[in-house]
């Protein structure tokens, strides 16, 4: 896909994500909007290998969604590829639906149980080791929030991956800089984040997380550099696309009314 088509996809995913939030206000909209371009780059940018007829196809790249709450943006993408039916999107968070506000592997395309933060990278380390042992060419991608880096389990995994030189492991941090109650820097400042990873034996890239071309360049370079696991720190804006969320340190717990969603989607057209 050319870059313009990818940008259009991102626009579509963003509006669909807001549409889902309009149907199900329990979904975390701000956190989902910040990772739209990251998911678009992975799924449409020729990065992720997957097989829609066999979600557990051995040759697939593994995508572990560590920031479960903020991955509602993946629902429309899965529907676009036919992994779930487009009609099913409308059932989000309704009785009997498998589309909850936090996705788990009952939804095709999700590998792990999500929702408990700080767990994805450690599991990904095990998967990466296993793939290496199997001499597989598949990669492991982790989508992580920045807030969950406060969890100690993440740093156990960061140290482990560096020590074991898990070259097939890539974590993309949706660095939207906002936790639930405040800006991360006011809680425990994670910066300089590049140095922290580099000191634990990781290759580091830092990009504008809403620039699909930059994301693709970074991820693609990570696939050829080798020798170390790679972190891509994607600087993003929490609530991207919704002005009042973008400037709100409490955006994580803010909801948009159905009318507001309609208005924003209308404007995006």
């Amino acid at each position, binding site marked *: 896909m050319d870059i313009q088509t990818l940008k259009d996809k991102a626009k579509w995913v963003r509006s669909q994500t807001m549409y889902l939030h309009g149907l199900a206000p329990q979904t975390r909209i701000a956190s989902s909007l910040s990772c739209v371009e990251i998911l678009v780059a992975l799924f449409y940018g020729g990065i992720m290998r997957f097989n829609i007829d066999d979600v557990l196809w051995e040759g697939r790249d593994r995508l572990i969604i560590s920031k479960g709450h903020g991955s509602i943006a993946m629902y429309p993408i899965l529907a676009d590829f036919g992994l779930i039916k487009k009609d099913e999107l409308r059932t989000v968070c309704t009785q009997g639906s498998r589309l909850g506000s936090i996705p788990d*592997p009952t939804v095709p395309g999700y590998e792990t149980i999500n929702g408990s933060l700080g767990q994805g990278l450690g599991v990904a380390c*095990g998967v990466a080791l296993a793939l290496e042992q199997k001499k597989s060419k598949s990669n492991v991608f982790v989508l992580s929030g920045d807030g969950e880096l406060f969890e100690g*389990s993440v740093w*156990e995994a960061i140290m482990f991956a560096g020590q074991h030189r898990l070259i097939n492991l890539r974590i993309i941090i949706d660095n939207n800089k906002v936790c639930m109650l405040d800006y991360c820097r006011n809680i425990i400042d994670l910066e300089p984040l590049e140095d922290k990873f580099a000191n634990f034996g990781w290759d580091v890239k830092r990009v504008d997380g809403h620039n699909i071309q930059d994301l693709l360049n970074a991820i693609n370079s990570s696939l050829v550099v080798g020798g170390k696991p790679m972190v891509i720190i994607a600087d993003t804006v929490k609530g991207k696309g919704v002005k009042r969320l973008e400037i709100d340190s409490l955006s994580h717990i803010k909801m948009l009314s159905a009318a507001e969603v309609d208005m924003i989607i209308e404007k995006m057209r």
Partner: protein
Amino acid sequence: MSGENPKHMLRDVFIEQLYERMRKDSSIYFLSADFGAPIIDKLRSECARRFINVGIAEQNLINVASGLALEGFTVYAYGIATFLIMRAYEQIRINLALLASLRKMNVNLIGVGYGLSYDVSGPTHHCLEDLGIMRILPNIEIISPCDEVSTRSLVEYTLDNNFPKYIRLDGKPLPAVYDSHDRMPLLHGFKSVQQGSRVCIVSTGYMTHKALRVVKLLKEQNVNCGVVDVFLFKTIDRDALRKLLFTYEAVVTLEEGFMNKGGLDALISGVLTQQEFSGRFLNLGFGDEYVFEIGDREYLYSLYKLDDQSISATILDLVKKI
């Protein structure tokens, strides 16, 4: 059992047998949270790529194990029981118990030192909670062998069954309960190791040894007490166990853990009450408090009226009331 009865460290028995399998089967991983055993030196030099010391990092131990198992490997995750299961309890819940609802995963948590195995190390190293907190989690089997023979046969069980398991092993060497030609009834998950009349102790692990000592004391008082050893907690054949226990007039659970907190006592009372048990039921174990006193295991037991003599006296009282 007669003659010499040598003691065995069950972790050595377990890992030694596993090592023989690991040498031939490249789909087995052994992860340790910086916890050792003499046999591990051999294992890590011969299976270097599949032995990983993750460091003192139990949370990551479980998560890495989970990731390997998702990719089809059989994984053993080894550590001190209390830290293995309690430091990493949420990892066990999310990435083993929950995930195993949806994906096949053969992860085997080997926890060494349940109960008061680490007697003088104090309450951080004591593990009186494990049966209760692990029984709560769906999808995880609890394996609790009491001696060398049962440990050996359970190694095969862990390899053959593709779901998460918690294997609890004593921290101290234990003598034999079973004869080498005994076959462990894996489909039952328990074995009657002493046939009695009227009263029966149900126990697991170290407590089965204690139960057998208590049986000897009771015999001197002309009480013929039975002993049932439980070694599989989830897949245990409840109907068969009920049938056996209903032949007694009193059932006593003896566990090296807190009473009334979902451990062995809860399992057995659940089995008994599923159909109306007309006999008496008594649970023995530790009360709702931690053990700070210093001394060897049996000394600590004596402080909590769980020494052989006290237990024998308690059961004698019970028998008089039948």
